[in-house]
């Protein structure tokens, strides 16, 4: 068939059409071989998207095979719209984290909003009701005007979407680092709950079944988003990419969500798939491919926002708030009635066939015809050519002049964007709708959500310090997992499953390839050793601005089981006169720390973690938290033990501590003891005998002091610091004013 009559993507004509759409010459030749002719415009547009990095994972798929994906509690693993784990009593919790980095760097409000919208759809596509959103954001330094523009937009967009749809945003993290200046990161995670038996898979099935498109009408927004934005580096011409960013409508999504859950409850759908990157093309192709069937779609039956859209535009549009259902012919009317009740669109646009082909029709006339295997599985997978860089490839800017006292260092660290309270952001989010939020933003080390369905609760944490992965991709990636596991331990949660979002630079460059390859190795090792299955995730590559790659950022989302939410400890001291302990095998070092960053002395290398010892201490802390004997629990992370102690005092109860025993472990380096970082450390408060009792299992426990007073006083050998809580608090709470300045 000829492509000319069907319309083609608008191209400048300067280079071959396939190159302009992001396909290499070799890939184009391969397409011609697979379909035994040259593709027409519709087909080429479809291939260019499904064979993009964003959809095909062509530079990461081979590496991801190293991740452990199986576990007793896994209900759904990678390959579905989201992963899911068993939480008991016949219920499952579904979750996934996904990036929306490049759209957010171009238009932060809509980019972040539709990032939330997309991840919500992934979760309710399984039949799970979304119960929480968490987000992980990265920007340039706080003082940058661009940072404040992006931050304001992204936080506003997340709030706009989540608040309006009635799903609470219960946690998250924000880091400010120079390498994200051009290329910010917006990763959103959604958690949902479903009866395990009611969950539905994405695979199409049943020859002759109807293909029903539900939700919003299809427009020209977001055309080519997956290939143009998500799979190439950002450059100065980004203004021109604004039309490829989608516009979100949370009200539409709210109706589609309720509609889909009602359809599934009534047993009216064979399968359900959301429309995300690459729109109808990806949704229909992946659904049919997973089911081993074929699919016919008639673009003339797709409800359009603009009447004159070409077939290729309809097939690749990334208009938001759309879902694709496979429906038995006898149930189509009932499906459309439920859609009408929720005042959302529905149209029967095609049929499941036994052809193994994806046929695109317009008013019954074929305009495209592709073997599904070629489209979905034909994309070549590339081996990376990693090479470790000889030295630190990022810059170093110094913000400390030198000669500061420990008091001054503490205040400087507490006020840094990475450590300071993120209240400015999280107060813009509804964190309580749904009545499940036992521990919300900054209320504990992990968010805790009640599950009245089972009488238990889940804890959720999202974390990933890119700077430390940059220093050492292997150790840094392990640390990101351990940080989440430690966060969960603090609220008494046992990890059930993990999702990850791997945000990296251009994998075709050796140093970035090495970061990706090495970090995935670390991630795999940590998950393997700790017995945590990876049930889903997302890879975002080509995160580079004009100044080079971002910090390699492996964001980890972890979900765990909490038997009794009533006793989950908070993370600030509860009462005066209680003992304070440093628990776990932490050996803090200044390498890669916030203090070293502020001194402009970052370089390669991090201390390696003793995974077994960390796991053992996590188990001890988890059991103590579960038994209700801890008054507070937090892990030692950014800014080291001194910042952890100061943050624990933010509830108004101070501490007097002598960390000489930790100093011994650090070889007598007082600064490393106070401000050094590393994994495997907890700060716990509670009755003295309870804390000493933790040591019985071979876990390292150092009783270092007592709660009380209005100051944070820490002695570390010859060095010491003493800061009033009010002063520490005003440093820690300074971020909002600096953003609004």
């Amino acid at each position: 068939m000829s492509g000319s009559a069907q319309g083609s993507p608008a191209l400048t004509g300067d280079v071959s059409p396939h190159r302009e759409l992001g396909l290499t010459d070799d890939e184009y030749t391969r397409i011609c071989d697979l379909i035994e002719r040259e593709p027409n415009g519709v087909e080429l547009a479809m291939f260019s998207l499904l064979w993009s990095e964003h959809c095909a994972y062509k530079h990461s798929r081979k590496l991801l095979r190293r991740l452990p994906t199986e576990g007793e509690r896994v209900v759904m693993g990678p390959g579905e719209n989201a992963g899911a784990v068993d939480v008991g009593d016949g219920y499952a919790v579904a979750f996934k984290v996904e990036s929306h980095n490049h759209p957010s760097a171009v238009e932060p409000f809509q980019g972040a909003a539709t990032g939330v919208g997309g991840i919500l759809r992934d979760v309710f596509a399984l039949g799970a009701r979304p119960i929480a959103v968490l987000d992980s954001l990265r920007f340039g330094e706080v003082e940058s005007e661009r940072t404040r523009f992006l931050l304001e937009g992204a936080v506003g967009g997340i709030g706009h979407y989540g608040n309006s749809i009635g799903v609470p945003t219960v946690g998250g993290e924000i880091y400010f680092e120079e390498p994200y200046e051009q290329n910010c990161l917006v990763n959103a995670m959604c958690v949902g709950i479903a009866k395990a038996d009611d969950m539905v898979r994405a695979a199409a099935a049943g020859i002759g079944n109807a293909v029903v498109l539900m939700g919003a009408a299809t427009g020209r927004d977001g055309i080519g988003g997956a290939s143009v934005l998500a799979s190439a580096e950002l450059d100065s011409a980004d203004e021109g990419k604004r039309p490829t960013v989608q516009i979100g409508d949370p009200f539409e999504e709210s109706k589609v969500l309720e509609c889909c859950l009602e359809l599934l409850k009534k047993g009216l759908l064979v399968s359900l798939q959301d429309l995300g990157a690459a729109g109808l093309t990806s949704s229909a192709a992946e659904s049919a491919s997973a089911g081993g069937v074929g699919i016919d779609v008639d673009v003339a039956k797709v409800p359009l926002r603009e009447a004159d859209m070409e077939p290729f535009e309809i097939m690749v549009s990334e208009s938001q708030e759309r879902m694709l259902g496979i429906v038995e012919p006898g149930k189509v009317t009932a499906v459309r009635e439920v859609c009408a009740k929720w005042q959302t669109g529905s149209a029967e646009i095609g049929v499941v066939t036994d052809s193994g082909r994806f046929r695109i029709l317009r008013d019954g006339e074929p305009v495209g015809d592709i073997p599904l295997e070629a489209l979905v599985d034909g994309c070549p997978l590339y081996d990376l050519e990693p090479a470790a860089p000889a030295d630190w490839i990022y810059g170093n800017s110094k913000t400390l002049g030198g000669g500061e006292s420990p008091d001054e260092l503490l205040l400087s660290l507490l006020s840094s964007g990475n450590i300071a309270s993120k209240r400015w952001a999280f107060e813009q989010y509804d964190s309580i709708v749904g009545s499940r939020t036992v521990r919300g933003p900054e209320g504990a080390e992990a968010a805790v959500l009640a599950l009245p369905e089972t009488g238990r609760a889940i804890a959720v944490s999202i974390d990933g310090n890119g700077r430390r992965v940059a220093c050492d991709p292997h150790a840094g990636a392990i640390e990101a997992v351990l940080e989440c596991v430690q966060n969960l331990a603090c609220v008494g949660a046992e990890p059930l499953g993990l999702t990850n979002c791997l945000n990296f630079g251009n994998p075709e460059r050796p140093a970035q390839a090495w970061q990706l390859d090495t970090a995935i190795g670390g991630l795999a090792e940590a998950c393997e050793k700790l017995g945590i299955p990876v049930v889903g995730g997302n890879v975002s590559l080509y995160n580079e601005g004009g100044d080079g790659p971002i910090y390699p950022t492996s964001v980890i989302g972890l979900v765990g089981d909490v038997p009794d939410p009533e006793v989950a400890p908070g993370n600030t001291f509860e009462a005066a006169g209680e003992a304070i302990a440093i628990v776990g095998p932490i050996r803090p070092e200044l390498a890669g720390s916030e203090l070293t960053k502020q001194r402009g002395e970052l370089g390669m290398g991090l201390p390696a973690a003793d995974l077994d010892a960390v796991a053992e201490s996590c188990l001890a802390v988890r059991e103590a938290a579960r038994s209700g004997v801890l008054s507070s629990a937090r892990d030692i992370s950014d800014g080291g033990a001194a910042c952890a102690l100061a943050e624990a005092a933010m509830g108004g109860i101070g501490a007097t501590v002598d960390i000489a025993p930790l100093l011994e472990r650090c070889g007598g380096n007082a600064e490393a003891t106070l401000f050094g970082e590393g994994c495997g450390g907890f700060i716990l408060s509670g009755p003295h005998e309870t804390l000493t009792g933790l040591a019985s299992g071979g876990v390292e426990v150092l009783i270092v002091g007592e709660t009380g007073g209005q100051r944070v006083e820490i002695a570390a050998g010859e060095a010491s610091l003493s800061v009033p809580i009010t002063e520490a608090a005003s440093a820690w709470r300074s971020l909002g004013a600096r953003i609004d300045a």
Partner: protein
Amino acid sequence: MTSWGVLQFPGSCDERDALHACSLAGEARLVWHEERDLNGLDAIVVPGGFSYGDYLRAGAIARFSPAMEAVAEFAGGGGPVLGICNGFQVLCESGLLPGALLQNEGIRFLCRQVDLVATGADSVFLHDIEEGETLSVPVKHQSGRFYAPPEQLDELRERGQVALRYAPGQNPNGSVDDIAGVVNEAGNVLGLMPHPEHAVDSLTGSTDGLALFRSLAGVAA
């Protein structure tokens, strides 16, 4: 036992939470926005959220829904109606309550636990709450700044229609006279921006909101 109806519009967010709170003080069911029949219901909650997307102005579309027409009639006959957040906005748009709710002074959406001070206003929802009593209840809204022109405001104060104020220094939205909630003249319709339905369980917050739901049970009994 009080039989509660909780309105559900497309775009409602807190209707299930309100349903749960009501069920702690009686029996409760959802009322779909196209329903007109409120027979058998003793009290109505117009819940929080973004009814019909709130695109025109918060609450401006919902007031025309069949269910709201029925609620207006129900309220006119003395039936107890509680409007929370978006529900308060809807009741103001409907003319069932005086005043209007403008965008927060700080422009942004704000979610935060605040203290409310009861004024001792006469309302079926406030019988269990003493004048001067403090309630810890969360707010979460972007358009919660209560406003009434000076003359109307004087009238409201004179007639005891100001029901709840934000505690000194805690006004999250810049509302006039720190007003968080108002009642109609008859006392059977109460609207407030804070969310008492999110303050009914010590596990997820305070329990200070329960009094508003239980007050009615006491009145009925």
